[in-house]
């Protein structure tokens, strides 16, 4: 069971107090109407599945009812940071090196 630091309550709490809402930083298109099906499909369905750092949206459901973001290592399950909505993470995965032959 994860131990998650709620940035609003200011302390570590057990995972059971929280719900995860998937990948963080997926903004709703400001005007969805003109989106192509492909753009809309990207927003709706396509998510990263990184090995390493992943930014996730969580809510402290049993506590302060606030949403916030986490940076979690998907290998070790370590949570490197939690940060309020509207702010940016300090820890990010290094950009993947583009190997020869990769389609860009």
């Amino acid at each position, binding site marked *: *069971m*994860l*131990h998650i630091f709620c940035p609003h309550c200011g302390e570590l709490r*057990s*995972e059971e107090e929280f*719900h995860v*809402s998937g990948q963080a930083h997926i*903004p*709703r298109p400001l*005007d*969805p*109407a003109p*989106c192509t*099906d492909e753009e*809309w499909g990207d*927003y*709706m369905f396509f998510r990263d599945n990184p090995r390493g750092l992943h930014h996730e*949206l969580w*809510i402290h*459901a049993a506590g302060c*009812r*606030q*949403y916030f973001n986490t940076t979690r*290592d998907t290998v*070790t*399950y*370590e*949570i490197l940071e939690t940060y309020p*909505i*509207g702010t940016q993470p300090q820890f990010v995965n290094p950009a993947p090196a583009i190997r020869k032959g990769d389609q860009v």
Partner: protein
Amino acid sequence: MSQSNRLPNGGRIDRSKVLNFNFNGQTYQGFEGDTLAAALLANGVDIIGRSFKYSRPRGIFAAGSEEPNAVLQIGATEATQIPNVRATQQALYSGLVATSTNGWPSVNTDMMGILGKVGGKLMPPGFYYKTFMYPQSFWMTYEKYIRKAAGLGRSPTELDPDTYDNMNQHCDVLVVGAGPAGLAAALAAARSGARVIVADEQEEFGGSLLDSRESLDGKPAADWVATVVGELKGLPNVTLLPRATVNGYHDHNFLTIHERLTDHLGDRAPIGQVRQRMHRVRAKRVVLASGTHERPLVYGNNDVPGNMLAGAVSTYVRRYGVAPGKKLVLSTNNDYAYRVALDWLDAGLHVVAVADARHNPRGALVEEARAKGIRILTGSAVVEARGSKRVSAARVAAIDVKAHKVTSPGEWLDCDLVASSGGYSPIVHLASHLGGKPVWREDILGFVPGDAPQKRVCVGGVNGVYALGDSLADGFEGGVRAASEAGFKPVEGVLPKALSRVEEPTLALFQVPHEKGTARAPKQFVDLQNDVTAAAIELATREGFESVEHVKRYTALGFGTDQGKLGNVNGLAIAARSLNVSIPEMGTTMFRPNYTPVTFGAIAGRHCGHIFEPVRFTALHAWHVKNGAEFEDVGQWKRPWYFPKAGEDIHTAVRRECKAVRDSVGLLDASTLGKIDIQGPDAREFLNRIYTNAWTKLDVGKARYGLMCKEDGMVFDDGVTACIADNHFIMTTTTGGAARVLQWLEIYQQTEWPDLQVYFTSVTDHYATLTLSGPNSRKLLSEVTDIDLGREAFPFMTWKEGLVGGVPARVFRISFTGELSYEVNIQADYAMGVLEKIAEAGKPYNLTPYGTETMHVLRAEKGFIIVGQDTDGSMTPDDLNMGWCVGRTKPFSWIGQRGMNREDCVREDRKQLVGLKPIDPNKWLPEGAQLVFDPKQSIPMKMVGHVTSSYAANSLGYSFAMGVVKGGLKRMGERVFAPLADGSVIEAEIVSSVFFDPKGDQQNVE
């Protein structure tokens, strides 16, 4: 013959307390302080069960949690049955009843054995793997057979009378294991002031010190244990948990400890006491002092009763005063095992010989044995044992470890006990539960925990530190480190002096060679619990399984409750040799929780019986009970389902309730509907974005029905929202959707539109909601309210404030039945008084309470949907024929708009919600029934929809249903067919889903 193997002296047992117990129907005696295994050995019980696959007789092999054979069923009554108990971990108590889990009809004459090892032939290595390759149906057939033959214990069929619970713990330092290193660590951490928990799986703290020959500060090691435990007990910041196995190491230093509080006291827990407790511990730091398991050597017939782990022999002799034999042959590759021979001598028993695989051992313990005249055969090992139900002899021969060859025929030595020691394996299970890869250390021939992100320290045996003095120091230092990392001041301490002696390295011997080669040699067992032989592992590698995980699954090595405690390293070594790779290249398999079996009782804790789950009640529940309601579970709520009168079944009751609402007036408790208070200058704009329809023009005093979609354009909730002030709304949601909708509003407000000024607060529990519905509802309500209910004064879809039954109320004129209806909202504390007044005033009107069933019927007659019943997350408002509820011209692109405009969502042949009228009015279409256009087509038929709601008992007088049909809205009057499982077919006409009062005249009653 009683306790024939009990030594005259010694052991940490109380010989004045004789305990009777029963094993496989026979009564025996043991002493307080015995484990069940010790008592069985004391009574000379050799055969404890039959093996899983080959049905071979098996005896007690070890003395701790690593015991592979003596895994028994415990329990004196049906209700107190516990499977998978290791006899080596079960303290003896008076009246204990144990039975073998394997070996029908009796362990001594096993039917499967007599019939010629049926099990072995049916289940060659690779059985699991091969079976899974076949279709599912084959597995079902095999499974029955395996379960019966394997007999790995059974659960009780009666209710367990004992209490089990959970306890949440937090500490700065959790010390796992109370052997020398663990106790030293605990001392260091506790003295620093940290909150410390010490857990150990044994009956008492001390670990190896409880049966050690060693002295500390010149006194018996057990004396030091007593002193330390005494000090720890006196500290308020320390929690000591004996009989408590740390079973799982989970994320972020969350560990589970299975404490057996009263398992040592009797078949049932004493009155008022908890039997077992699961501690759920969050530790800032963990000190793993889990110690080591001795490895047995792998040789021919090493499973016959009378073969034992060397250290276990010492434990039985010194800790329990039991001699598990008379004539001992010890086979070893290390110095430390020599203590077993010395202990055996001290007990006045005969050591036939020690076979040491090393050519010229000169360590201190070896010399001591030599000096005492013990015969030592060097460069040798026990190659095979002889005996069917008990060892009668062992052949010791010279071996060449490098060439893996026997180099002399050797000699058969008469003996009844073969003790073997192949070195020591650090118990890395807990350190590996989170995936940490153990690291091979050639100097100790064992895997130790590798680096891991967990905040833990490994000390003592598990850290590869074996000598007693070193282990104490390592433990203390680890305890200091853990406490200081948790924020406490390091302390200094003086540790007791342990004798340090010269010890020579262990020789890398795992499987003892045999002249006939592995395949033809007498069976050499690697994993006794899962009946895996060296030959099976070689076969696996020959068949091409090179990964250790594949070898494991092919052979079952380390499966199940065993988790590779004894066999893991030996199995890896054999696989590595046969693949010609090194052991570290081979690597270990995953170790998974739990370390030893945990009862379901301890896992469930108090979440059982009447407090298994929260049950939610409305403020009016007692009234429903008094009025004879049958209840239905709706989420966690108990809602009245229907109110039967004497002799009524559900159909009769529902018909009566429906009629009462249509003819006069009914009463429904609608308190469970979600209610959300919405305040803020941007509340209206928020509603515009979250609902499909428009809210800009909803005046104060008015209410409107709204549909909510997800971004994909599919309906996910609905309800009526009322404007109660310009910046103030009350939203209602479905009963099941209340929490979900509130979270939905919050996620958009907090993450997408934080600029919108609006707050949401649940008032579901604050208000009780009483619905009066039916043509007489106005007349009835007017008798108990000061609100003007006149048609013009209080029109449909508006709300008013006033007194109802003398209590301030908000009354909404909205309807889910099609009848004139009022929903009365009152602060829940006062609802019962109001209900009683309404019920009294309702008598002349035949006011009839109705439940969810009648509510469902009446709304369906009007074609009103129930989200979750008529929708399934794949229906747009248009699919539901509710396009009227979509604000297509709203300026902001509201949630669901883009989704429902996808090409696929505007197809005309989508499944659409329609009414279904069975041609035979007495036939009832089952909900969920699939629909086809042509019932005569061949199977598989082309399915075109399904029934979502269907009611035989209603106010219409004929059976009707709602369902979805492809292109159904353009197929009015056409026929569909529901072919049912019994072969019959129900024919129905596609009709409008509004069966009752399509023009809405009922709202206009006087």
